[in-house]
Structure formats: C-alpha cells, structure tokens
C-alpha cells in the first residue's frame, strides 16, 4: 500500500520534472546544448540528493553511487595530469624512449619505485614492501611535524600579555584569556584527580569549552544553511530563472 503510494509519487515527480524541462527547452529558456543539458543534469542530481529528506530511496542511492564513482574517476584523471604525467611520465619515461632534448632524470626512479611499492599493500606475498614506502612517508611526516608544531602551535601561541595596563577592559579580557587557556589545559590533565582547586579550575575549563562549542555550534548551523542557500539559489536562478 505505502509502496504503491511512493511509486506513484516518484512517477509524478519524474513526469513533472520532464515537463518543466521540455517546456524550458522548447521555449529556448535552456539551450539544447552542453550548457542547457548540463543544467538539467545538475538539477536532476540536486533533486535526487534531496529525495533523501523524504526517506532513503533508490533514486538517492543511484545518484550517490554515481557521484562516488565520478568523483573517484575525476581524482584518478586529475592525479594523472597533475602529478604522474609531469613528475614521472614526462621526466623519466618519455625521455627514456624518445629524444626530447632532456635526459631522463634517473633520480625519479626512487620515489616512483616507492610509490609502486605502496600499492603492493594489497598483494599477499609482497605487501611487506609497501611498509618501506609507508615508513618513508610517515617517518618524513613525523620528522617535519615535531619542530614545526613546537614553533607554530606552542611557542607562537604562548602570549605573555601584561595583566595590568591602563585599559581596564583589555585587562579583563587578557585575564579571561589566560584563565581560559589554563583551565582548558587543566581539564585535559589526567594525572591528577579533579578535586579542590584543580577541580574548581577544571570546572571553569568546562564552561569555557561549552562556550567555545556553542560558538562552533552556531557557526556550523550557519555553514549548513549557507550550503542550502547556495543550492536553492542554483535551482531558483539557474534552472527556474525566477531571480536574476
């Protein structure tokens, strides 16, 4: 019974969608070209995604799986044209077979091999070779992280502003900031029981955290609403042409 109702809803929406688009194409509001058909495709995908709001349904699932596939395809091709082609193919492989005026850069063999080793992770016999590549990349990352983080996120973040100046409002804010940083750090301090003074300060830390999470909350609502506004702008402006 419910299923029948849903099938008919889907059919009606599809029919309405077709009629609107045919109308636009016939009246010339949308051109019968890459751009016009592109808008229709984009609208179809937008609406298919929104059908999730009614409930999880096959149209949504098809659109989503197609999207995942296309995004993966795009990633592959972009990686080819932006990384593998200029950095490996054109520096190492092309000059090796053709005379391009540039000698092949044999040094590129090392990262290329390590890159290929990484893919052996999925082989059963040779997966240990992938560990060499991961060790290289992860070790490199760990090595550069430590001093740069100490510099940028610890030393640079420690500010020693004067607590007493002529501007009382500034003084209050400076004190509140110091109290906030210290109390939040104490909240995430696990080697001591939160009792007495420590307990009191860590309680203040919780308040600070809650205000900060409230701010993040407000901003996240704002972000999601902005995304929706953008999509509705697309539907109302680019497709339906109701606004300029």
């Amino acid at each position, binding site marked *: 019974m419910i299923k029948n109702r849903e099938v008919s809803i889907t059919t009606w929406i599809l029919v309405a969608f077709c009629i609107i688009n045919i109308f636009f194409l016939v009246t010339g509001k949308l051109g019968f070209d890459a751009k016009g058909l592109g808008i229709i495709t984009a609208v179809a995908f937008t609406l298919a995604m929104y059908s999730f709001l009614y409930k999880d349904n096959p149209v949504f699932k098809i659109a989503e799986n197609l999207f995942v596939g296309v995004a993966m395809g795009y990633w592959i091709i972009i990686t080819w044209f932006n990384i593998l082609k*200029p950095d490996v193919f054109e520096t190492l492989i092309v000059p090796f077979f053709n005379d391009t005026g540039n000698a092949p850069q044999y040094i590129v063999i090392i990262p290329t091999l390590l890159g290929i080793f990484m893919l052996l992770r999925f082989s059963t016999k040779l997966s240990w070779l992938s560990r060499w590549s991961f060790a290289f990349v992860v070790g490199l*990352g760990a090595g550069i992280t430590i001093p740069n983080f100490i510099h940028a996120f610890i030393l640079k973040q420690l500010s020693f502003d004067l607590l007493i100046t002529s501007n009382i409002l500034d003084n209050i804010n400076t004190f509140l900031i110091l109290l906030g940083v210290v109390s939040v750090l104490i909240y995430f301090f696990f080697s001591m029981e939160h009792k007495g003074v420590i307990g009191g300060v860590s309680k203040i830390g919780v308040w600070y955290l809650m205000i900060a999470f409230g701010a993040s909350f407000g901003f996240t609502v704002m972000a999601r609403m*902005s*995304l929706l506004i953008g999509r509705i702008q697309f539907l109302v402006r680019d497709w339906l042409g109701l606004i300029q």
Partner: protein
Amino acid sequence: MDRLLGIDRRIIFIFVAAAITIPLIIRFELPVPATKDVKGIYDKINSLPDDSHILISFDYDPASKEELQPMAIALLHHCFRKNVKVIGMTLNPGGSGLADKAITEAGEEYNKKYKEDYVFLGYKTGVELVMINMGENIYSAFPNDFNGNPTADLPVLKGVQSLHDFDYVIDLASGSSIEAWIAFAKEKYKFDLGAGCTAVISPDMYPFLQSDQLNGLMSGLKGAAEYETLINRKSSAVAGMSPQSAVHVLVVLFILFGNTLYFLSGRKK
C-alpha cells in the same frame, strides 16, 4: 504537547525550505558591514602595489563550493582590479575544476592574459610536503601548470623563486589546510597569510588571528558577503544574507520552542 514535539520532521523541512526560498525571491536587502577580520584581507590586498604576486590556494572541493566559491570569486575580482598577479593552486583534487573556472572567468572579465597576469598551477598531493617544497623552490613543486605549460618560463612568475617571494598568500580551506599553511609554510618561510574557510572551522581559527599568524579571515558565506560589500560587487553571497538571517531566526525559534516545551513537560526524557 508530546504530539507537538513529535511532529513529522518533514514538516520542519518544509519550514526550512520556505525560510530560504521566500526571502530569495522577494529580495530584501540587509546591510552587511565588514568585520575587522575580513577587512584585514581587503586592506592587505589594497596596499599591494601593481604587479605584486599573490598566491591563492583553493583547498576545497564541491562539498563546500557554496561557501567558498563566492569568496574566491570576490577575492579574484579584487586582485584583478588591483592589477595584482594571481597564482592559483590547489591541494584538493576535487577543487581543481572549480578553481580553474573561477580564476579563468574572473581573469577574462578584466581582460587579463593567462600566463602573463595569472596562472593556475593545478593540483599536487602531499599537503605539507608540497608547501615545504614550494618554500624551497616553487618550480620544483610545480614544474607544469594545470594546462601542462612549463612554469620555468612563465612571465607571471617572474621574480618568484619560493613562497617567501609572494607578497601575500591566501588559503581558502574546507579542511585542516590552514593549520598546515601556518605551521609548514608561513612560519617557516615568512610571508603574510590570510585565510577564508567554511564557517564550520572558522571558530578554530581565532587563536591564529590573535597571535597574528593569520592577518585576516573570511568565514563562510557571511565572510564572502562582507568581501562583496567591500569591493562593491554585490553578488550571490550578499543575496544569500537575507535567507541566512531568516533561517537563523527560524532555528533559534525552534530551539526556544523545543526547550520551552521540554521544561513545561517536566524535563522527562
């Protein structure tokens, strides 16, 4: 009362859709004064002399397009008006098409020439590795641009050897790339850094604003709208502010209403 709380969520969905669509169609304008953080970026670009080099990293993908693309476009318009040389890049593969489109369209509008006045270097992976490599030598990180042109003889890059040579760098981010730009590039190679990001991550950026590790920040569609106001080119972001206001009021009303009912019904679960 329970029935009021237990209404089908799809009714609420309709409220949201209406709160956004109606203000969009009716169009009423609200003032969008620029905040100090957005003005930081605007003033910096305004202070740059002609032919300065500005690097914009488009580190977002379609999922954040509606927040960051208006920002990118407003920024590009400002740069091209100021005759600043624009160098674009991305660390997000999904962002390369959007970045290429924004930069090319804005450039063409101001009759700027590709390769001479602006260039899009394309995508590289490895985040901090790319930044450090660019910090040492930008031609090593990007031997070719997005269209395959060798970068070594691009006129637009003349005078730029590494990140240090850029007069300004802006990161448009939907993820954690701003932190990476600060730690591995700005602090290491010393240049001025500004950022634009989705509203989700912008509260986390305030420590960097206070420590001057960022000299400006645009957050979300609101930040883009402020920038559009500053450069006096009101477009989709400013148009989005009236529905944004309406829907925020709606959400706040929902929270107040829901909590009132909750307390009236004796806070039971």
